[in-house]
């Protein structure tokens, strides 16, 4: 049985699905990274994904264009994020409450909106026809490489975009004036204020970015992954993204690696639950178990780091 398991892990189908499953988590996790760097905890990623997933599918259907659908999802994501920002930065509510509100809106409001717009209940499967799905791309040279080609080629446009964003977010944070301001605001808002950088403005920009990214994650879900919107579709990916951000120490590359770990765990669950003689209930624990183990390892490494710093500080005295 172990042999079967190993074989099924190291086949191309499985690795392909790891990448596919990771993409939406990665989008939201990059959103968490940029918001967190500006000192903003956007706990509303889950709700933003839900709502923008719905609008992505609907707008795509209305305009009969997947591209406009994706852009619509991004705009909806930005608007929702700015709404959270408005409540937190302008009206001075706790940002966690704003995030929870959007999450609840995502859970309940979407079903209402769907019914209002289309009269359908529960899912939009019928609306998202094949030609409205986000297209897949075969990469010319890569696809002919044995094994690797089958893993890396043939993904959707958005999947590649998700991984491209890891690099892009890193560039924004570490190579641009905006990134410098974002990091300054997140770490010492007083320092930013004292030299004329508006903390509020920078935080709005950062949360808008996180909304746009969660919007892309949502579009990916409804317009590619599930081929239509349904109410249980996002299934905690927004929260898993927050965990990935924490485990990746808030850095783009680390967050990508932890997102891949979560993607791997979910793919593994899907794979193993299909096998005979394995309790599907037991298997469904895998992603969450991986999350817990990951967070424990993260906590241990943080503790060690702190200890080292303390020892170093003692030595310096």
């Amino acid at each position: 049985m172990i042999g079967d398991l190993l074989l099924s892990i190291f086949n191309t189908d499985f690795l392909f699905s790891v990448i596919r499953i990771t993409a939406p988590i990665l989008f939201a996790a990059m959103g968490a990274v940029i918001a967190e760097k500006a000192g903003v905890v956007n706990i509303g990623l889950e709700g933003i994904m839900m709502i923008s997933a719905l609008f992505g599918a609907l707008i795509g259907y209305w305009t009969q264009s997947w591209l406009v659908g994706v852009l619509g999802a991004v705009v909806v994501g930005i608007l929702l994020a700015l709404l959270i920002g408005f409540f937190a930065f302008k009206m001075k509510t706790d940002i966690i409450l704003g995030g929870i509100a959007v999450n609840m809106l995502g859970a309940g409001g979407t079903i209402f909106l769907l019914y209002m717009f289309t009269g359908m209940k529960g899912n939009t499967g019928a609306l998202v026809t094949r030609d409205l799905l986000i297209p897949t791309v075969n990469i010319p040279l890569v696809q002919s490489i044995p094994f690797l080609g089958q893993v890396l080629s043939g993904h959707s446009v958005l999947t590649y975009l998700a991984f491209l964003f890891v690099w892009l977010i890193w560039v924004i944070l570490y190579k641009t004036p905006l990134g410098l301001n974002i990091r300054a605001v997140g770490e010492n808002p007083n320092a930013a204020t004292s030299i004329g950088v508006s903390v509020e403005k920078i935080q709005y920009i950062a949360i808008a970015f996180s909304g746009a990214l969660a919007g892309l994650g949502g579009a990916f879900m409804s317009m590619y992954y599930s081929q239509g919107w349904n109410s249980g579709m996002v299934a905690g990916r927004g929260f898993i993204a927050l965990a990935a951000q924490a485990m990746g120490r808030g850095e783009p590359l680390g967050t990508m690696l932890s997102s891949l770990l979560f993607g791997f765990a979910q793919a593994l669950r899907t794979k193993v639950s299909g096998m005979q003689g394995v309790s599907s209930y037991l298997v469904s624990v895998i992603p969450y178990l991986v999350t817990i183990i990951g967070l424990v390892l993260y906590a241990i490494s943080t503790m060690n780091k702190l200890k080292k710093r303390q020892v170093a500080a003692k030595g310096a005295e």
Partner: protein
Amino acid sequence: MEQEVIVEQEEVVEQEDFVVQMRGINKVYPNGIAANKDVNFSLRRGEIHAIMGENGAGKSTLMKILFGLEQPTSGEILINGQPVAIHNPQKAISLGIGMVHQHFMLVPSLTVAENIVLGMAPTTKSRLLVDYKKAVQIAEENAARYNFRIEPNSKVMDIPVGMKQKVEILKALVRGAKILILDEPTAVLTTQETTELFKELIALKEQGLTIVFISHKLKEIKQITDRLTIMRGGRTMGVYNTADISEAEISRLMVGRDVVLKVVKDKAQPTETILKVRDLEYTNRWNKKMLDKLSFSVRRGEILGIAGVEGNGQRELVEMLFNLNTPDTGTITVCGESIINQPQNKIRDRGVSLVPEDRMTYGIADIATIEENVISDRFTDSRFNKGPLFNVQEIHSECDNLIVDYRILAKSRKQQVKMLSGGNIQKVVVARELSSKPTLLIADQPTRGIDVGATEFIRNEIVELSREGAAVLLVSADLNEVIELSDSLIVMYGGKIVAYFEDTSQLDDEVMGEYMLGLKHQTEEEIAKVSYE
């Protein structure tokens, strides 16, 4: 006609002379406290000008107004002879004013160069990316021009305090500051770092910068300033050429009481020693020695006062006495038992009470009720418990008694403490700390910032407690309080005891000022008397 012209010319001369003129500045905070009363202040181009005064004299407020962090209630500001309104720090920066705050405004994980160019980062040709090389170059060029030694590529969290301060000064200079305000710049520096800073400040002055130096350290002021403005109680006490005024004269103007309050009390009859502090030493994490071989005792039935300008080790001492911090060496005993590293409840069990300096953080829980606050040190007592539950009746009556006894003005015992006035909040703290009948009371700035009625009440309660046989250690920066309330008194300066007065009744402000500002100190034999051995 001719005369008028002459008058105008004189004005022109005056305006050229001064880069900053602040006239008739008043600042009244919404809570009614007047921090600046009709203050006039001016800066000559290219001078180093000290603003001196005790804590709360209004010097920081005045500079915050100049830097746009506070708005004056009335008064006018002229920069280079032009009237200006400075609504925010950005405006101040654009007028060529820079301020180095006591608490650094730096981003620890960014490099020195990044901190210096923050908000005005140079970009590459594409205008999208930060030109980091250019940023380092800007930092290095400016450092070289002003002869500052910095490491542009190091992260700010990895550099020493002295260098952080240089980064702050460079930040202001890069933004075109011609007037530099330094708020107690030497408070965090070691002696060597201070010497280095002074050299650099003099070099800056030679390059034409005007520097304001907020301080209450006489020796430093004498060393590097050209002129000084002395403030006391929100007013200016005069402007002097540093060379023309003696240290004793500065001290007399800085320290002193406008109104002498009298506290009526019997003569103390001290008996056995309760608190014994011996050879206490503590160096803080910035390598600054805050407590230096501190030894004293407090006896039953007396109030020992600790006077001194804030920041001379009083806060650290009180922290040690309640185990909020651990000394490097030395002993602290209460009734013969060490309290170092003992949990606070064990220290309280030995009969020690604390009225802390920062009442909102250490004195009370602001969203809890009066009742919850007053029983927070005693709710485990058997009389407040019935089996697993509270004896609510007993707690109510305890709280009601305290509200009456300590004259706490509140709607009910269920009122949140933060809804009370400052004086009543302090009465809640005092009610809890004094009603436990302590053997040793540590009262740290017990009446700071509260109204006259509450002040008088609290002072009388402290006297009464001591006459009933408690040992009281009173720490206060308020000269009236520390002289009038204490039976005997020590003065702290630079982490040391510099004077001991067995009897406070004949003390005068002038003598106190000289000790508080480090102009004089007693011999070791005289000081050792406070150990009563």
